[in-house]
């Protein structure tokens, strides 16, 4: 039996992304491992009305919101760390086009854990006593909000705490450093909440910077935090997190982070960005050309490169990957 779950990016989005669905990604931090390329493809295929569940904002959510593909967002952090506010997401929230329901970073991870465990609720000892509890963008008329983080009594101490609603997104597109064709994955750097998300989501697609032989997973099974049994499909796409970083593989592209966020600050800038960096490539090669050969060399020459060293001998070439992919090559 062919165990390969490798499919093309376009096929993955076409088959798994449905208008109006709860779409999760970005279970990494705002400037790191996120399946940014998956968001670009969502725009290329004009999917919309998404309910985005992003532990933290990333350039993917910033772009999807700016281009009008997202109507609702649940998020723990909505900026871009040292790169500042997320201009695309921010202006859509300010205009009222996007309803952004705020939680904290621990809350989002706990809600994913709650979904993964099929718990009825998760006890909340954070976010209570703040406007995160009292204000709801999904029920703006209700103040203080009663259904966002309702109060419950700790049955042991009698103390009043909150209850978080578990998350079970319809689909998760999870960026990983390495996957094999069956869907086992290794993440370098902090996994943030990708472990919990992979168990909470109804369907999981991996977007992998590299494809490695399954022997690699057998050598380091402790590092395989996402096993194939919960993975629907695997997409190979180098520099999938660009302009964000992927520890061990490439650094954050500072110039493009700024260029992108500046563009997303206006409708016109967003239209131009989509023209120049979303619709302007036709395959992996032309995508990499867009990033630029010299730039790729510079970004790949990372202080973290040594993190990939133990795994390099198992990395498959694009030709080997193409042979194992189902369907079209892009």
């Amino acid at each position, binding site marked *: 039996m062919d165990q390969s779950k490798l499919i093309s990016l376009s096929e993955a989005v076409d088959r798994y992304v449905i208008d109006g669905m709860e779409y999760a990604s970005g279970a990494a*931090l*705002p*400037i*790191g*491992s996120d399946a940014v390329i998956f968001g670009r493809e969502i725009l290329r295929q004009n999917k919309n009305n998404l309910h985005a569940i992003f*532990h*933290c904002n990333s350039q993917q959510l910033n772009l999807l919101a700016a281009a009008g593909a997202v109507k609702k967002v649940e*998020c*723990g*952090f*909505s*900026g*871009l*760390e*040292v790169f500042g*506010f997320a201009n695309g997401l*921010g*202006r859509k*929230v*300010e*205009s009222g086009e996007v309803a*952004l329901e*705020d*939680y*904290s*970073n*621990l809350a*989002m*991870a*706990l809600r994913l854990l709650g979904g993964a465990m099929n718990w009825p609720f998760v006890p909340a*000892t*954070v976010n*209570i*006593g*703040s*406007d995160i509890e009292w*204000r*709801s963008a999904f029920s*703006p*008329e209700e*103040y203080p909000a009663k259904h966002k983080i309702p109060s419950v009594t700790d049955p042991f101490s009698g103390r009043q*705490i909150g209850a978080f609603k578990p998350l079970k997104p319809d689909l998760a597109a999870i960026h990983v450093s390495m996957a094999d064709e069956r869907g086992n994955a290794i993440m*370098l*750097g*902090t*996994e*943030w*909440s*990708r472990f*919990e998300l992979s168990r909470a989501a109804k369907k999981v697609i991996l977007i992998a910077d590299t494809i490695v032989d399954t022997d690699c997973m057998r050598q380091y099974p402790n590092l395989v935090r996402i096993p194939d049994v919960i993975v629907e499909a695997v997409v190979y796409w180098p520099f999938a997190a660009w302009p*964000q*970083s992927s*520890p061990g593989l490439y*650094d*954050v592209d500072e110039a493009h*982070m700024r260029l992108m966020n500046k563009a997303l600050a206006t409708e016109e800038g967003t239209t131009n960005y989509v023209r120049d960096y979303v619709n302007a490539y036709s395959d992996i090669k032309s995508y990499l050309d867009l990033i630029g050969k010299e730039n790729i060399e510079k970004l790949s020459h*990372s*202080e*973290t490169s*040594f993190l990939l060293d133990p795994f390099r001998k198992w990395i498959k070439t694009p030709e080997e990957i193409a042979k194992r992919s189902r369907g079209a090559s892009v």
Partner: protein
Amino acid sequence: MSAHLSYTHQEMMAVVTGRELKDGELAIFGVGLSMLAGYFAQAHHAPSLRTMTEGGVYGSTPVGGLPWGIECNRISSNATSFTNAIDALGCLVASGRCDVGIIGAAEVDKYGNVNTTGIWNGEIGETYTAPKKRLTGAGGANDIASGAGRVIIMVTHELKRFSEKVSYISSPGYLEGGNARDRYGFVGGGPSAIITTLGILRPDPNTKEFELDSYYPFSSVDEIRLNTGWDLKVSPNVHVVPDPTEQELAALRKVDETGMLRKN
């Protein structure tokens, strides 16, 4: 400013914040200037400070300047452990194990409540309306404010940032003061200091209202009161904080290799 040393207000804020951290403590830093203050302390006077970031990045120090984010190569190239959010913010902070956290603020009020969610220009009202300017949200700061033993708030001292009452509490300080935090059973003790580009504010032990504790060689009580949006009380023991020493500045600038604190 001292006769022979020149430094920026932001550098002073970072040095003074760093001085709050003690050797051996378990400390968590947010991304940005608080990270520079924290790693400065470790490089200067607290070599056994146990540091972590909310991403679950342990054992590392910044390489090549202020990290752009927690997953940045500048903080991920010499780590000894990478874990995850539930571990860092949950097992180590919500549990009550973390001694001290440093967070930033767009707006802070007299009880140390922090707003990083949005600018509404005043009260939001009964209906939750969209902000005039959307900010970053709470991130991990709410978790740190609820769970860390004590919290240091680092903020640029400007009138617009110092309000009688914040429009939105993203991260709880002492709420409406006194023992209001007790209602929620927070494991963390609340903010111990608001350290600014002009001085240090500390809470009254009973009312929890923040008062002016000290100012810098280049600032004054009047200047600080003028830049504070409530009638700031001045401690009877108000005093001047000493300049950064040469050693402190050298240690800070080594961590702040790209000069983020010297830009303004």
